[in-house]
């Protein structure tokens, strides 16, 4: 009943595994898929091998988490085995990529595209590296440039992942749409934040600052999707704190077509995807509504 078409692909339901959550290998992506996920995303792939930051890198604050994993990546040229494994897959896949310059984004995306993922996502929104990602996502022009550069070298739909740190995220989304983006993914982690341990008088994260995720950022994610939906005509993957079927319905009413899930894996287990999909299904049938009917329903004025 939840099966849907998304840019030419058939998805069994609208749940999406967020990038950086588990997605380190084909085996685990497959398990996530088997646990009810409609579309899985790989951990973001970078231009060169990178270890990420020292621990602590991920903390649970109770109402969400803070992380500064720091974009670890084998580097796009060092993943041949993984790509070989993924060739055999029977599930739809988003490959997420990042870079330190427009040229790097382009280089990585072009190469990754040759490995035939179903979608490519560019992460222009990660707060956890001094050089990578976010700087692009808070500026209209640089967002436009990186999107159009990547778009010109790939032949699968392009998803652009945005940061809520942009002073006007809808404006950035519009710039991305203008540059050829096929989908907007919102949001990456919020903040950034910092947690100081008062006994040792030290920031707990080794990188000091980290991005916030999980339930506490859901209102920010909903607002961003709401704003973006008003501004663009391409579909939106809504994520940020989605933990239950009701959360999923909420962000779809804000305007999302698909619903990303990350931190909730911590709170409900790896089968959170099936749980959320079932809860959505229940809610929709109780209300005798379809996904289509509720998309953007919170916009009384438009569409």
């Amino acid at each position, binding site marked *: 009943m939840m099966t849907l078409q998304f840019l030419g692909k058939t998805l069994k339901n609208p749940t999406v595994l967020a990038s950086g959550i588990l997605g380190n290998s084909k085996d685990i992506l497959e398990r996530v898929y088997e646990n009810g996920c409609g579309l899985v995303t790989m951990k973001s792939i970078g231009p060169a091998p990178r270890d990420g930051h020292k*621990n602590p890198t991920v*903390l649970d604050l109770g109402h969400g988490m803070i992380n500064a994993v720091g974009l670890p990546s084998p580097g796009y040229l060092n993943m041949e085995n993984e790509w070989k494994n993924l060739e055999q897959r029977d599930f739809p896949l988003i490959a997420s990529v990042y870079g330190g310059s427009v040229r790097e984004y382009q280089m990585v995306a072009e190469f990754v595209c040759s490995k035939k993922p179903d979608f490519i996502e560019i992460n222009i929104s990660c707060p956890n590296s001094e050089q990578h990602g976010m700087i692009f996502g808070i500026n209209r022009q640089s967002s436009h440039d990186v999107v159009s550069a990547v778009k010109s070298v790939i032949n699968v739909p392009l998803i652009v992942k945005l940061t809520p740190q942009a002073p006007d995220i809808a404006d950035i989304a519009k710039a991305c749409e203008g540059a050829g983006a096929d989908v907007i993914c919102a949001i990456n982690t919020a903040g950034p934040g910092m947690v100081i341990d008062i006994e040792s008088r030290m920031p707990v994260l080794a990188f000091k600052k980290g991005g916030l995720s999980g339930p506490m950022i859901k209102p920010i994610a909903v607002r961003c999707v709401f704003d973006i939906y008003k501004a663009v005509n391409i579909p939106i993957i809504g994520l940020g704190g989605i933990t239950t079927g009701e959360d999923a319905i909420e962000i779809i009413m804000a305007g999302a077509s698909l619903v990303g899930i990350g931190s909730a894996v911590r709170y409900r287990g790896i089968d959170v995807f099936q749980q959320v999909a079932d809860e959505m299904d229940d809610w929709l049938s109780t209300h005798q509504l379809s996904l289509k009917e509720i998309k953007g329903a919170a916009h009384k004025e438009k569409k």
Partner: protein
Amino acid sequence: MTIPMTDQKHIMLRVEEKKMESREFATLFFQYALPFAPGQFIMVWIPGIDEKPYTLSYHSDKRFAITIEAKGIFSQKAVTLDKGDLVGIRGPFGKGFDIKPDETVAVVAGGFGMAPLATLVETLNKNTTIIHGAKSKAFLLYPERFNIQRQFCTDDGSFGHKGLVTDLLEKEIASGKHFDCVYTCGPEIMMYHVFTLCEHHHIPCQVSLERYMRCGFGVCGACVCGKQVVCRDGPVFNTDALRQMRDFNTRALLKSGKAVDLTEYFSWRCKS
């Protein structure tokens, strides 16, 4: 719908007592009532240094301890900690051993693998067979602990049988002894051989795996091993899981997320 969520901020504790088990092994005791089941682990943060997973090697209602082998930067720092020094802990995390009382079991420890097994051993009956091997005598952890007798072996013959733990386990089985379960921890290659031996004799097996970890609660993906998430589904895995785990004794992820064979993995671990 309300999902229960609890804060996992570090609990900051001061080392209450330190015991050097040998030149390279230190046990740090902390006064704190930590809920815990044998096989689970905690994340240990040394402010300014790093944070790594450790199993509890002692546990009571009032205190617990971790035993650390000095290897890389973090553990070398950890063994120099002393009474009054501050560490942060998160956890416990993961699933521990599945323990059924009144079973006849064997515990097979390879060197340092005795640390995670120690609290398990303390719950088992006298009828338990314990086999403990190491490179040489100095690496046989807790030589005087437990009131169940151990069979020892060393690679160099410096203590007990000269040879491998699997030699001793095989002998026990050959002698007609029946085991309901074999628990093992040690180098992955050793655990693999123990598992293979058990499979051959149709003995259920539980092994405790180790992978690089970040979050400790099943989100970041650093520790994935086949379809399993070591920090959350494990670190203890049973026969059913091991049979399907294609990375067992073959592959592990480096810190970068790169999947490599175990030799490369351990040589990376040696460098840092």
